[in-house]
């Protein structure tokens, strides 16, 4: 008899959760904005990041001013023209080049002075580079490329064995995991973090607050639904939406952009589910604590999405941040997920990286789900 009752209670619980999930799913499907954020935005981001955005600088518009008619100067100018990184406009007058800089038609000016050939003979020639410094990162890359073009020219002039220009120590660089130095390799895995954060935290930050604003939360009070069932009903549909987003990203990464995938799918899926759970819990917690859609979404953006872009190691190096900021990053789930994704995609299943990061995420998930449940429960009482 007791067992029968217990079974009955369980099936009633299942029924209640089931109907909540159904209601929430219909709400997602019928509202164009949730579908837009859950499906359209991920696709848009994948295409933008995959095809458009790149930190690799190519075809920099550059003016080369040759004021010296000597063959050495002409050869040097040709070396800049041959470089795949520059889109060179040859000219002979400096004011003309400066005018182009002012209107930002070129990003830099290389000046080969009238006495270049003569100075080279004495072994003390100088080539001037003017860069447009507003985009500092871009400017520094241009500087590196210009140095490269100069080196190319110098190497060609070198008589073998003379040691004229090549330094005594040369550096051989090897970039592991990304031999081609393709920024897409880390931008696309990083994108998964952004999409999971958006669906997990930003979208769900609205759902409980909406019920409070519209007064339907109070209507839920008088039903037999319990707080953990509300939590489950709100979590499941968005969990599925997040997994759809993940699948889209994975397919695009593999088939559209050929990003190497060296780990195992099972590990990736497990880590992703864990992160999604953490993000969902944060979103629901904010939503049930704040009860206002506008404020909840603002907080969600501020504590989840922006840190996922800025403080997760996705774009900017964690080691180079000021110590205070670096301490803050330890509290951010996105940090651990970025480390996991970059490793699983490009390095493989390195357990020394995977286990600690997964451990932290799991602990966060447990704590946050507990907090969320309490936040919903308190309001119900």
């Amino acid at each position, binding site marked *: 008899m007791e067992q029968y009752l217990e079974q009955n209670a369980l099936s009633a619980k299942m029924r209640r959760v089931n109907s909540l999930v159904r209601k929430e799913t219909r709400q997602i499907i019928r509202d164009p904005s949730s579908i837009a954020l859950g499906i359209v935005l991920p696709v848009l981001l994948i295409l933008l990041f995959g095809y458009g955005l790149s930190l690799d600088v190519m075809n920099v518009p550059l003016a080369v001013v040759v004021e010296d008619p000597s063959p050495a100067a002409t050869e040097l100018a040709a070396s800049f023209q041959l470089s795949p990184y520059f889109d060179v406009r040859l000219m002979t007058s400096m004011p003309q080049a400066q005018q182009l800089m002012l209107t930002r038609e070129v990003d830099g000016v290389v000046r080969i002075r009238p006495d270049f050939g003569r100075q080279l003979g004495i072994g003390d020639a100088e080539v001037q580079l003017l860069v447009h410094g507003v985009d500092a*990162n871009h400017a520094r890359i241009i500087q590196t490329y210009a140095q490269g073009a100069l080196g190319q020219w110098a190497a060609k002039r070198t008589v073998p064995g003379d040691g004229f220009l090549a330094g005594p120590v040369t550096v051989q660089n090897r970039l592991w995991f990304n031999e081609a130095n393709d920024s897409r390799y880390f931008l696309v895995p990083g994108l998964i973090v952004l999409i999971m954060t958006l669906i997990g935290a930003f979208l769900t930050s609205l759902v409980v607050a909406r019920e409070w604003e519209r007064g339907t939360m109070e209507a839920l009070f008088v039903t037999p639904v319990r707080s953990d069932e509300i939590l489950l009903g709100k979590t499941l549909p968005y969990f599925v939406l997040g997994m759809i987003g993940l699948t889209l990203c994975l397919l695009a990464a593999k088939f559209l952009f050929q990003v190497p995938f060296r780990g195992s799918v099972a590990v990736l899926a497990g880590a992703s589910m864990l992160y999604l759970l953490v993000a969902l819990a944060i979103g629901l917690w904010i939503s049930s604590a*704040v009860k206002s859609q506008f404020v909840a979404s603002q907080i969600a953006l501020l504590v989840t999405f922006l840190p996922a872009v800025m403080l997760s190691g996705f774009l900017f190096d964690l080691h180079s941040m000021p110590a205070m*900021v670096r301490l803050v990053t330890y509290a951010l789930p996105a940090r651990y997920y970025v480390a996991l994704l970059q490793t699983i995609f490009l390095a493989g299943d390195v357990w020394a990286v995977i286990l600690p990061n997964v451990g932290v995420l799991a602990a966060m998930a447990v704590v946050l789900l507990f907090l969320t449940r309490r936040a919903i429960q308190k309001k119900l009482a």
Partner: protein
Amino acid sequence: MLESFFRILALTRKELLAILKDPRSRFSLFIPPILQCLIYGYVATYDLTDVPYAVLDQDRSAASVELLAELDGSGIFRRVANLTRASDIKSTINERRALLVIQIDQDFERRLVSGMQANVQVIADGRNSNTAATAMGYVNSIVETFNTGWRARHGQARVPVRLTTRAWYNPNLETRWHMIPALIGTLTLLQTLLITALSVAREREQGTFDQLLVTPFRPAEIMAGKALPSMFVGIVQATLVLLVAQLWFRIPFAGSFFTLYAGLTVFLLAAVGIGLLLSSVAATMQQAMLFSFMLIMPFALLSGLTTPISSMPEVLQYLTLINPLRYAIDMAHRVYLEGVGLRLLFPELWPLAIMAAVTLSGASWMFRHRLA
């Protein structure tokens, strides 16, 4: 005419009250911009300052120690391990204990002394290839310094050509100088668009919009009443960013405030126009919020803020031409860092003015036909 002015004034006052009376919404309007400004200012840089690296020095000679001392003394690299076997390299990189491993072969000093080419191998963790490439660039220039010193001391010829660089507008090439002025446009766009779209959506969700329509307000007056408060908030936020840039980060302001605010006004008109257009499509607050977010993401990504526009494929470069944020960021940079006046700012201003005209008249058409 005067009556109309007073009606707009009343509506503006009510709208400002609606935005500012809730302490939480007040907080979320003005604190996050300042916080973001600080975070972006400190974090958003591709420069590296503390790179963990490991060494496999198989030579252990005076020369190799000298080279490594150059690295340690650069202030950029921090040695985390001295490896003894080549097989340790793999696990050091794989487990992310170091970003770089520097390997010096046994015959390093012998080759140097006998005038042969000596090699240094640098193995970098390419999981974030941008960071790794930057770090390798630093190693290269440190080795270059070592080379120059070695030549000088061993009587070898100097490098006959050198490159001297001068950067306009940002002499020390600080990323922060690029980032913070750009935030004047980015942060204000985000909030202005959102507030405008939400203020109409809120009235619709609560049913007060219908009440507004039966008052003697004309649609254009309602629109102006919604637009002005958002622009006001936008101007205040831009001023906050400007204050942080000048008082906290001390980035020198080269232009004139009049030019900057004139440009900002045109930009905010365009932003409010987009917000109003959006609000006529959105039925609920959630839709208004998610739709404006969906617009802001591509705006931000295609603005040249994080990745240069010239590195994008051509199709996307054309797309940036209809992105108001692109012009706002250009404008902020040109006024703030380059110090140009209104006349030279014309290429940025006219697209913004056209966008404002198109979106505002589109929104007013929607107000008259869809809503009334």
